[in-house]
């Protein structure tokens, strides 16, 4: 196995942490979980980014619906007025979320691999997604992002290793502030 199981698990954890970071701290109630397939019916496009090294390639995609509900959400993420957000600023904002996600992954992978590069995001039709498994992959994992308003959001991680790849990454522990005794 070129890509070890713990490396796959580490990449999945990095993807989840990157998505959380990309979507900002205001989505604390957001749940991200791995799913066997993406429900494409409610989605129209995906923002695709790549992280490349000499020995591996990681493709990350954020799937979304190009509709008013997603525009309202992304306007909140980037702090813009929804009514003033045209098609291009909407796409730019989605790409920025993808960029933040992959930027975080890139930084974390940098702890294990010296030479890394991150691409710019590209928007593709969601109908390109089924072909992800055919472009050469050692690890393909889909994620469902459950937002409080029921907004349809998914993500996919696709990794290919050209030499044996094994590392173990754990997300940083969040400081626990609850449970402290308070005296009055």
């Amino acid at each position, binding site marked *: 196995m070129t890509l070890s199981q713990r490396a796959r698990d580490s990449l999945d954890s990095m993807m989840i942490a990157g998505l959380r970071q990309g979507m900002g701290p205001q989505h604390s109630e957001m749940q991200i979980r791995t799913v066997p397939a993406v429900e494409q019916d409610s989605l129209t496009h995906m923002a*695709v*980014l*790549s*992280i*490349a*090294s*000499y020995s591996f*390639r990681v*493709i990350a995609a954020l799937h979304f619906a190009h509709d008013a509900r997603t525009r309202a959400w992304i306007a909140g993420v980037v702090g813009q007025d929804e009514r003033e957000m045209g098609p291009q600023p909407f796409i730019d904002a989605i790409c920025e979320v993808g960029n933040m996600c992959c930027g975080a992954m890139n930084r974390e992978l940098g702890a294990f691999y010296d*030479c*890394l*590069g*991150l*691409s*710019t995001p*590209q928007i*593709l*039709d969601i*109908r*390109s*997604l089924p*072909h*992800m498994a*055919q*472009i050469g992959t050692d690890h393909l994992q889909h994620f469902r992002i459950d937002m409080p308003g029921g907004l349809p959001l998914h993500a996919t991680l696709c990794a290919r290793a050209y030499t044996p790849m094994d590392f173990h990454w754990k997300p940083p522990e969040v400081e626990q502030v609850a449970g402290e005794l308070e005296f009055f």
Partner: protein
Amino acid sequence: MMEVLILLCGCALGAVVGWWLCGRTLRNAALQTEDVGKDAQWEVENENARLQSQVDHLHSSLQQAQASMQNAIGQWEQEQRQIEHSAGQQTQAVVRAVVQGAMGHSQTLAKALADLQGISKTFERWHADMSKLVTHNKDMHEKNDEFARIVRQMVIVALNASIEAARAGGAGRGFAVVANEMRTLSVNAEALSKHYRDNLYKNDLIATTTFQDMQAGGKMIINASMGLELTNRKIQAALSA
């Protein structure tokens, strides 16, 4: 009493005679001792004089030896200074040549790294080509969608033709065969159009991810190049110091 007195007088006389004899003996001994001391003193003085002469001679020899040694040390130090000066000059020349050589190589490396970072222009060209490819694919998507609409229309027309042929009865039997053939061709064309559309989406994904792989790889090279440039600057600063 007289006897006692005589005895006392005899004793006194004896004592005086004894005292005189003893004093004489002592005086003779003293005179003899004085003669021996004078001889010894004379010998000691002679010996002292001889030794003093030897000491003076040795002192003179020592001073001459010290002077000779100081001259030799002076000459040796001068020669040493000359050697050190010469060696220092040679070492400085060698170090200077090495530093100049290293600085030259470092400047060559700096130029090569600056040229390498120009690879970003190549990525811009690739990006432009990628945009052309995406535009071309989009045009093909539109053409294929148009083709799919025509094929769907053909399916409907072929279906209508089959219905009309059935209405014509025996006279329309030949037309029904043609209509059915047209319908089959339309269905096959629709399947082909769908397959072609799927391949266009696959092509979009392959083109995008391949371009992104090149782009990310290029950024990786630029990042490595920038790291080398920084190190090279530090080396130049160290060589200039």
